């Protein structure tokens, strides 16, 4: 069965620090998709990225970057030079080839001024 683990329940950093949110997944499928979502205090969900299992190239989008390592079944998310507006709960998710979609429990990031 597929599973997503986000071991960090809460992280606090000071503004301008870099922070990495960990995501470890389990699946028996060789074809799958990985996602990251942001949920700010206002409650809405914001899609950040989707990556398929055949694309191990790291992705950078502004201050955000993602490190996909199949060897360790990890899809970690790094925010560079964090800002207060980055404070949110971040969810990692997995969709396997059988279309089963599982979210991790989320990591609450607090960026302090």
């Amino acid at each position: 069965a597929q599973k997503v683990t986000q071991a960090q329940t809460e992280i606090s950093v000071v503004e301008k620090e870099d922070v990495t949110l960990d995501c470890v997944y389990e699946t028996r499928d060789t074809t799958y998709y990985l996602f990251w979502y942001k949920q700010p205090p206002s409650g809405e969900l914001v899609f950040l990225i989707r990556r398929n299992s055949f694309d191990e190239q790291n992705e950078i989008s502004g201050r955000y970057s993602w490190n996909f390592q199949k060897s360790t079944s990890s899809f970690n998310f790094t925010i560079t030079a964090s800002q207060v507006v980055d404070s949110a709960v971040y969810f990692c998710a997995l969709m396997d080839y059988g279309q089963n979609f599982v979210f991790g429990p989320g990591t609450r990031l607090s960026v302090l001024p």
Partner: protein
Amino acid sequence: EPEVTQTPSHQVTQMGQEVILRCVPISNHLYFYWYRQILGQKVEFLVSFYNNEISEKSEIFDDQFSVERPDGSNFTLKIRSTKLEDSAMYFCASSPPTDTDTQYFGPGTRLTVL
């Protein structure tokens, strides 16, 4: 900028009643999704919809749930006989045909079942 809208923002209902949650996806989008989040818990996928039929559904999406695209703009989630444990925030999302890797979320509907 076009956005996904959802109505109502908050729905209160009695246990056993039927509710319909409405979503208006972005106009040229063809892929639609429903997720829910029980307060303080993780997000759960319910269903995805494409070409007027369900593409995938989770174990949560049992016979009490149904989805429909009754016209060219709305995408609805119906819960036939609500239970207390259906109380949650329900999020709709859509994806364009040219970029199915990206999902655009609505603001959510908070459903409270009494």
